[in-house]
């Protein structure tokens, strides 16, 4: 199998998405291996993101690779005026694969064009965060047993939330019905509604968030409503408590319904929900490890067959 970049999930075929999920499933069975022994993974975080970086580093370490990198652009030569291209080419001399986070949109795509080694996009500004999307898909697949024909409710900041945008694109192969629940200021942008129409994705919009609205949900995907996103602070004060999920709102929920959240949460999911069997956001983050192990192997040309027949599993 050839090497790949993992820059966006929007362009991946249904077959590749399912293939990656099967890989993740294998890693969940046996997360500790030495299949990447002898490889050096670079995690270049031009913008701090502790959680994503730890997840990538853990995935690399659990597969036997060694990890180099930085966690803040201040500690790289970027502060001396080095171009991204030069940084990427320099690191390509040392590492076998790069997972990079950058605050500039399109940085990962550009890096993948100049680098002789595979590039994984660990988030590029407000643009894409495909590894988060893959772990979301894996969480949905694992909890529902399928990705087909699901009712997915997206709640909160649908305007700036890149995870919800990526999820819409990645789910286009699976005949979902989306429900967008957001205050007017943070409603789903027109371009994504157009995307849904062009791809025959069904959707409904709501401004109310209550137990009746979410009664049909298979997946309830919560996001943070951030104060700094509002131009009108009065509007923020008015809606800030309207998009908080509380335990008593789950009485009508379907038995299979799971609550996801890309984390970190602030107050959009009340703490009394944590003990509810519908809560899934902490396990969801754990799935990030398996998804990222799959991404490393896919990018380094290791096939599902190789993973199934792996002799390096540590039991």
């Amino acid at each position, binding site marked *: 199998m050839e090497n790949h970049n993992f820059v966006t999930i929007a362009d991946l075929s249904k077959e590749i998405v399912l293939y990656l999920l099967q890989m993740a499933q294998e890693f969940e069975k046996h997360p500790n291996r030495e299949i990447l022994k002898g490889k050096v993974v670079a995690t270049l975080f031009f913008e701090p993101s502790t959680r994503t970086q730890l997840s990538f580093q853990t995935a690399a370490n659990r597969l036997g690779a060694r990890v180099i990198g930085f966690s803040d652009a201040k500690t790289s030569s970027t502060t001396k005026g080095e*171009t991204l291209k030069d940084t990427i080419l320099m690191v390509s001399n040392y590492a076998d694969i790069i997972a990079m986070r950058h*605050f*500039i*949109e*399109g940085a990962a795509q*550009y890096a993948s064009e100049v680098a002789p080694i595979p590039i994984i996009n660990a988030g590029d500004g407000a*643009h894409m965060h495909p590894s988060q999307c893959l772990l979301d898909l894996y969480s949905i697949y694992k909890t529902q047993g399928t990705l087909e024909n699901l009712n997915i409710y997206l709640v909160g900041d649908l305007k700036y939330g890149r995870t919800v945008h990526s999820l819409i694109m990645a789910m286009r192969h699976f005949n979902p019905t989306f429900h967008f629940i957001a205050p007017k200021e943070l409603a789903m942008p027109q371009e994504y509604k157009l995307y849904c129409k062009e791809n025959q994705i069904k959707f409904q919009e709501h401004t109310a968030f209550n137990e009746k609205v979410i009664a049909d949900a298979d997946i309830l995907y919560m996001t943070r409503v951030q104060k700094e996103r509002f131009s009108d602070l009065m509007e923020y004060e008015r809606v800030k408590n309207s998009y908080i999920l509380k335990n008593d709102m789950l009485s009508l929920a379907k038995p299979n319904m799971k609550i996801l959240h890309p984390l970190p949460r602030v107050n959009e999911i009340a703490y009394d929900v944590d003990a509810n069997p519908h809560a899934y956001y902490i396990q969801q983050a754990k799935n990030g490890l398996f998804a990222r192990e799959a991404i490393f192997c896919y990018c380094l040309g290791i096939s599902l067959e190789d993973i199934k027949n792996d002799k390096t599993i540590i039991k």
Partner: protein
Amino acid sequence: MNKKERLVAAIKNGTVIDHIPAEKTYQVVALLELDKLTTPVTIGNYFESKMVGRKGIIKVSDKIFSDEEISRLSVVAPKVVLNIIKDYEVVEKKTVETPDELRGIVKCNNPACITNNEPMETVFTVADKEHGIIKCRYCDKEQDISKVKLC
């Protein structure tokens, strides 16, 4: 055509670019890099035109533009006509085809896009030819071709 009507001198061989909206004439000059040519170039502007109100006209001697060069004009003046002249006669009329991809011609409107933060070439795909919508290869932002700036 009598002398009074003749706007600018005829050329023997080359290209006459006609029906340029007057405010776009010098952008066409820049896009075709006419300042670098060493053959005679005549630039006329603000002539009356039934088609575009006020128009520019550029006559370039001894130069035939490639399709790639012509496609660059789609950004600023998609309706121009290029008359290919041989021995004072128009032998061919070319119109501008919007290409599928624009490389290094226009800037991305998104200040947070990598193309505005790194010394590199911009690349746009044409998302909707009819409405002139182009999409940045890097940040994926769709933009109106009439609202982007030239590189």
